[in-house]
């Protein structure tokens, strides 16, 4: 019964999405206030319906209702409760439902927090979101319905892929999808602006918080995915330039560019057409990312579900959404008059440089990811583009990006003096130089460059704050006043830029990692990275739905015990599959990492890693997202202030 209710709620959500797409857009075109005002209510309705559908699916999974095909295929009565809940979005059908649910949340959020938007703009934004939503809901209903029944129901489910039975992966999809889907809102704003044929500073101010929210989620989502690959898959790496990883990186790069170019629209009313194009492009990358993961068209070690028919549907949806918005762009873009003249050396100029570099990086990532597909279709050759390609192309583009990142925020708007700006950063440059020389002495050129870049970013971010608060140059009380008077967005920028510095330091540290594959009998020991790794024992232990083999390794340095590591191997009898459970001991500055492989003649095959600064990679991403959130909290306060509101003449006429 609950399955049918869920199915009905899904269909209801689809119908509401169609109405949400048609009524507000029609109302905005006819300037019918009543129809336009219906938009938020329709968005709330769709959200309630889809929340009901998702709730029904979670319920069916929690009570192990195996007459629902989706639950029978992906769940098992012995599966722990947490994974019965999170498993609902770990499979294809459930993940599409999650996509649609988050899209509905976005629509409802525009309805709830968009009170300061002109009614027509809000109606159009919600309408465009409804249009996108109904595409995904039709897909869910026609191609990937999670509520289909099987009769007779199986006695027990087939269980989930054991690799997915992990807390990191349980929360990875909702966060990553919030990032992907969140960029639907800037996309909807862009399309709405194209329909209206008008963009002003206020548009930039409205669209930026949405883009920033999506960007924060996407940053966290990518970091969480990378962390999962690091500790669960057990390859000891954190980024493999795999197509699925690249698919999430592309919208992140253009989304980062969007967050920055929207500042220029807001402050200077320039780069309008470009910002609209970025908003469309970012959502296009989000959609194509979903398409790639879900269709299996690109060969990836992370692809879990492959189905060509579904791929074709998503591709059609992608073509429709992106094609129609680009046609609209081509027809309307020239109506968006550009303003705000600026010199190349200025804050705007620095932001343009940021956009060029980020989009260039995105272009090479797209090239490397798509080339195997192109080569197979056109040249008939099977090949893959590996990490060396991406390292060779991305790195030279990241260097000028990092160099400019600290300089940009200290430049003034319109016209700036580069020499004076560099003078303010002299100590950041000095620290970066010292760190670089020190690192070059110990580890060679590339890590030195990375550590210097990291120091340049972190100290540069601090320098900008010091500059604004005049630390040590004014009395302490005035300094405190200046700190209190500083906008949170300024702290946010500094924090986000410093966060990238932390991540770069982590990546540089990981390039100095060492590892060894050894076969040890209990009692034997080996030496790696200054530590003695001794295998103490090999034992069996029971788990909830698996059997576990545990290796206990003791680590010591100069005969002083440091830590005990216990990597495990879990055997899942149901799936006849073995999964390694990595043991990691961190102190914030280095990870000691051990993987248990198979056993041979009483010896355990172990892979041991010493990973300096590894946690900084994800810590830096969290700091970046934190900076984004801080800046967001500032914007929301400012958006609430009536003085910031500037109702365009057209909207005033419509009200």
């Amino acid at each position: 019964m609950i399955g049918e209710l869920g199915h009905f709620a899904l269909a209801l959500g689809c119908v509401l999405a169609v109405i949400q797409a048609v009524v507000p857009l029609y109302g905005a075109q006819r300037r019918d206030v009543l129809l336009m005002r219906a938009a938020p209510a329709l968005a709330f309705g769709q959200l309630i319906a889809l929340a009901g559908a998702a709730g029904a699916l979670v319920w069916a999974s929690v009570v192990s209702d195996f007459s629902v095909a989706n639950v029978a295929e992906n769940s098992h009565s012995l599966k722990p409760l947490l994974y019965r809940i999170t498993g609902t979005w770990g499979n294809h059908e459930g993940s599409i439902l999650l996509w649609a649910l988050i899209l509905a949340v976005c629509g409802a959020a525009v309805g709830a927090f968009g009170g300061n938007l002109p009614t027509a703009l809000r109606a159009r934004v919600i309408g465009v979101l409804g249009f996108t939503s109904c595409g995904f809901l039709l897909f869910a209903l026609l191609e990937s319905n999670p509520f289909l029944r099987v009769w007779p129901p199986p006695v027990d489910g087939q269980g989930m892929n054991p690799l997915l039975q992990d807390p990191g992966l349980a929360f990875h999809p909702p966060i990553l999808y919030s990032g992907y889907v969140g960029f639907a809102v800037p996309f909807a704003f862009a399309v709405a602006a194209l329909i209206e044929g008008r963009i002003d500073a206020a548009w930039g101010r409205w669209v930026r918080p949405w883009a920033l929210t999506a960007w924060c989620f996407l940053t966290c989502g990518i970091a969480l995915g990378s962390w999962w690959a690091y500790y669960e898959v057990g390859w000891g790496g954190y980024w493999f330039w795999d197509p699925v990883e690249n698919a999430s990186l592309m919208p992140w790069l253009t989304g980062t560019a969007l967050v920055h170019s929207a500042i220029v629209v807001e402050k200077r009313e320039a780069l309008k057409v470009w910002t609209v194009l970025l908003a469309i492009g970012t959502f296009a990358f989000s959609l194509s990312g979903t398409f790639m993961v879900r269709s299996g068209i690109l060969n990836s070690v992370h692809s879990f579900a492959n189905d060509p028919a579904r791929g074709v549907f998503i591709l059609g949806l992608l073509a429709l959404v992106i094609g129609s918005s680009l046609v609209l762009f081509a027809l309307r873009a020239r109506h968006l008059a550009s303003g705000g003249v600026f010199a190349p050396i200025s804050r705007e100029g620095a932001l343009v440089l940021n956009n060029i570099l980020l989009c260039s990086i995105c272009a090479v990532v797209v090239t490397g990811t798509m080339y195997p597909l192109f080569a197979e279709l056109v040249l008939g050759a099977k090949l893959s583009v590996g990490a060396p390609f991406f390292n060779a192309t991305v790195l030279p583009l990241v260097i000028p990006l990092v160099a400019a990142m600290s300089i940009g925020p200290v430049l003034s708007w319109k016209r700036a003096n580069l020499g004076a700006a560099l003078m303010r950063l002299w100590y950041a440059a000095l620290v970066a130089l010292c760190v670089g020389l020190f690192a070059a002495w110990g580890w060679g050129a590339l890590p030195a460059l990375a550590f210097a870049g990291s120091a340049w970013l972190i100290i540069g971010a601090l320098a900008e704050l010091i500059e604004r608060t005049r630390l040590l140059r004014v009395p302490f009380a005035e300094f405190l006043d200046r700190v209190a008077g500083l906008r949170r967005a300024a702290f946010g920028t500094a924090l986000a830029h410093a966060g990238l510095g932390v991540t770069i330091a982590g990546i540089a540290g990981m390039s100095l990692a060492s590892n060894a594959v050894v076969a040890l009998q209990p009692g034997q020991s080996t030496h790696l990275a200054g530590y003695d790794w001794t295998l103490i024992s090999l034992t069996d232990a029971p788990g909830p739905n698996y059997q576990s083999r545990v290796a206990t390794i003791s680590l010591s340095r100069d005969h002083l015990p440091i830590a005990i590591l216990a990597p495990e191997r879990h055997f899942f009898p149901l799936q006849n599959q073995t999964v390694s459970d990595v043991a990691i001991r961190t102190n914030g500055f280095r990870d000691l990492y051990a993987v248990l492989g198979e056993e041979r003649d009483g010896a355990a095959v172990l892979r041991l890693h010493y990973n300096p600064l590894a946690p900084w990679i994800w810590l830096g991403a969290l700091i970046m997202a934190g900076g984004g959130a801080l800046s967001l909290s500032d914007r929301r306060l400012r958006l609430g202030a009536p003085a910031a509101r500037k109702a365009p003449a057209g909207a005033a006429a419509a009200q």
Partner: protein
Amino acid sequence: MTRKRRRLVVVFVCALGVGSAAALALNAFSDNLVFFVSPSDIAAKAPTSGRSFRLGGLVETGSVRRGTEAGHPFASFRVTDGKSSVTVSYDGILPDLFREGQGIVALGHLTAGGGFQASEVLAKHDENYMPKEVVDSLKRSGHWNPEGGPTPGTGG
């Protein structure tokens, strides 16, 4: 600076960015393309030893040898596409999903002795999944029968 010249500067910088990205990409491509090769391809025309490529096929039943040598593990097995097979040696930990009859992809290079030294061995996350390239190469060698179950004759 006039408005026109400013625009020119911006266009110039854009062209420089896109141009250097394209140049970097093209330059990196020629060295870093990793071709996919099946055992029959090696039998027909072996790639130069030392150049890395990806070898895909099924692990031949009964060919897997694992052992340890001076505290370091090694493994060797034969990868087949039904027509020919190649001996692969690998010093790391074989993936959890590695087993006989399973489709795998190995990254590495040919040694002077004609064997394949793998630096990476990949099996998919999903136990029933066969790497797409392996399926295609098995189809080409005529040893793939979709109705006959996931593992066609690998006895050799």
